[in-house]
């Protein structure tokens, strides 16, 4: 009997020991100072980052013998990337050492304790002080005043329009709309003259997620007399607001008059990512309200290569609601590289970022992704304008650009915006959706942190 008990005990040990080993093995991937784990997004619509990281890994490992950069691409659409990465960050054994992170989420992740403050390391990096453009540094700075991420590139938003379609509709090919109505009227004219063309595109629907809240709803909201989503001076979120309701009203007009993609297309989980750049290149869309990085989809190796894109397409600024000062609106975001809080080797992780964002590499990723440079010495790089003739236009918008509120609660406010926008896309009432949004915001940030606007 004794022997049996011992045997059983051994069996238990045999079964549980590998588990313990699992735990230990997992830890070592980030605790081990010899290996750093690099996490970024890799998907058919975004192969550029993978190519880039492979190159940086080569350079980094050559310059830092004995240290391995373990590339861990996450395969997902943009909208799922965030949740996947945050789940990895919850456990130190899976947390990244270096992370490709959307700037709007830096604050929330810093508050969650996922990111390492890197001010001390940045102070010792000459490029950071001499080359990085001060306004773009804000992308990685959190409300606590510490910096958690280094910007890779920034962007701006406006209108892309097809000059051929505009000419056929009798619209100017140097289009400069002054009000929201000018934009809508152009769409109406295209609809009348070319019924088989979808007059406009703007990010809409649940699958668009942050793209709908930022590029559509906030672009509109910031151009209304309400102007703001967050009142910096009062320290309060502006909800409910007339401006937000008007923004939803604009979406309602667009949907009701069939001026943009259909609700069915907007709700299709694949359409915007796979079909949109292609439809634009086939001349099936009149104009679109989106970011300057769209150029990368039409370049060689993009999802919809289109040799003539820069000749056929024009770019113009998006107007304020009634043409009131300052006349135009644009928003900027951008992507960053951050260091995970549980990294076993912050020095090596920072070195990886310094390699990835040195002059040469920073220029190559900005060119590949059609991002706007964040370094002074990259701005002058001739490759930028050579591969993307619209780059100077998108760059010029940065002079009056606005950023999303850099607060930890922003992602929740933005989610509530998506819910409101999605209901209007599907025929909901803007006033009701705006009221519900205000309630959701008050719940997320606290009812003492909101004001009416």
């Amino acid at each position: 009997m004794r022997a049996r008990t011992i045997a059983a005990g051994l069996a238990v040990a045999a079964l549980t020991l590998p588990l313990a080993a699992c735990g230990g093995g997992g830890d070592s991937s980030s605790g081990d100072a010899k290996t750093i784990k690099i996490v970024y997004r890799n998907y058919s619509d975004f192969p550029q980052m993978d190519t880039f990281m492979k190159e940086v890994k080569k350079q980094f490992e050559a310059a830092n013998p004995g240290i391995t950069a373990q590339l861990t691409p996450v395969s997902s659409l943009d909208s799922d990337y965030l949740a996947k990465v945050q789940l990895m960050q919850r456990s130190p054994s899976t947390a990244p050492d270096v992370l490709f992170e959307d700037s709007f989420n830096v604050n929330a992740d810093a508050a969650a304790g996922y990111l390492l403050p890197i001010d001390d390391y940045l102070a010792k990096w000459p490029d950071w002080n001499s080359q990085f453009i001060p306004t773009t540094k804000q992308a990685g700075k959190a409300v606590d005043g510490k910096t958690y991420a280094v910007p890779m590139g920034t962007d701006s938003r406006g209108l892309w329009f097809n000059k051929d379609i505009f000419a056929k509709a009798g619209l100017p090919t140097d289009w400069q709309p002054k009000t929201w109505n000018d934009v809508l009227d152009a769409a109406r004219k295209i609809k009348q003259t070319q019924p088989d063309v979808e007059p406009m595109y703007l990010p809409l629907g649940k699958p668009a997620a942050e793209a709908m809240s930022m590029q559509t709803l906030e672009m509109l909201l910031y151009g209304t007399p309400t102007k703001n989503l967050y009142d910096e001076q009062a320290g309060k979120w502006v909800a409910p607001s007339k401006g937000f309701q008007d923004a939803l009203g604009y979406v309602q007009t667009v949907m009701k008059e069939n001026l943009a993609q259909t609700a069915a297309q907007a709700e299709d989980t694949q359409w915007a990512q796979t079909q949109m750049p292609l439809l634009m290149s086939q001349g099936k869309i009149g104009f679109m309200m989106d970011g300057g990085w769209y150029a990368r989809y039409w370049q060689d190796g993009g999802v919809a290569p289109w040799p003539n894109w820069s000749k056929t397409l024009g770019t113009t600024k998006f107007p304020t609601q009634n043409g009131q000062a300052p006349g135009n609106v644009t928003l900027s975001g951008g992507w960053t590289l951050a260091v995970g809080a549980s990294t076993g080797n912050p020095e090596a992780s920072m070195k990886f970022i310094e390699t990835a964002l040195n002059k040469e590499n920073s220029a190559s990723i900005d060119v590949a992704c059609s991002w706007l440079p964040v370094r002074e010495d990259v701005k002058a790089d001739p490759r930028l304008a050579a591969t993307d003739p619209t780059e100077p236009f998108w760059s010029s918008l940065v002079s009056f650009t606005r950023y999303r509120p850099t607060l930890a609660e922003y992602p929740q406010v933005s989610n509530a915006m998506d819910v409101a926008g999605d209901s209007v896309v599907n025929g909901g009432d803007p006033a009701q959706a705006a009221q519900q949004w205000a309630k959701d915001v008050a719940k997320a940030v606290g009812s003492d942190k909101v004001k009416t606007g």
Partner: protein
Amino acid sequence: MWLPPLAPSIVLLGLFVAGPILWCFYAAFTNSALSGIAARRPRFVGLDNFTTAFTSPDVAASLWLTVVFVLLSAVVGQNGLGILLAVFMQHKGKVLRGIVGTVVVAAWVLPEVVAAFAIYAFLNAQGTLNEVLGWFGMSQNWLYTAPMLAVVLANIWRGTAFSMLVYQAALSEVPSDLVEAAQVDGAGPVRRFWHVVLPVIRRTVVTNLMLITLQTLGVFGLIYVLTAGGPDNKTQTLPLLMYEQAFKFGQIGYGTAIALVLLVLGAVFSVVYIRSLKAEV
């Protein structure tokens, strides 16, 4: 003496099944989140998540959609079609049984995501169904105009094989002298099925209903690929709502509270089935 040999499985079950469930119970009473300050220091919020859930029109709508989805696709669709197929194929030739069986089981064999993409390719705006209907000028975007019907059909297509196999096995166990006796007494095929076969396989029916109900309650991938819960939340069953709140909106605490609502719904269905099993005819 029973403990030592069972210990390994108890340890494993405890770690990988009971552990997560207990954690889920705990998290449902906190404001735990994927990011932000609540990710670092989740606070105990008592019943807040549940009061939000029970006053939320979204949860009520999802609960209703879940019940509709289970009743239509599992109880009526998979179960009904499964038993029909099994009955009709009972005394047919080997070839026919082979062909029908293969066609039905093929959907069951496919991994969930592959099956979902197959039906997406069939139903979407440029899909096979629309190409064919287009010849008659009747094409439309089924995933948008009739999303619930689309996911119900998808789940029936995918899950009927299981019910069919269960019923095929059960029917072969029905004593043939019983059926023949009824036939001699002059009972037609419908009466024979209703009064002789069905009472004999009653336990199988209930067991099958229980299994496919619980399976359908948890269906996520199929709906996520087809409609992602949309359009306008028309196919947002509880698993999709839970996923959206927990992982899209990062509200882990609230998401787990919805998971518990789903657990209770599953328990309610189970109790109904078990009771109907106990009640003697």
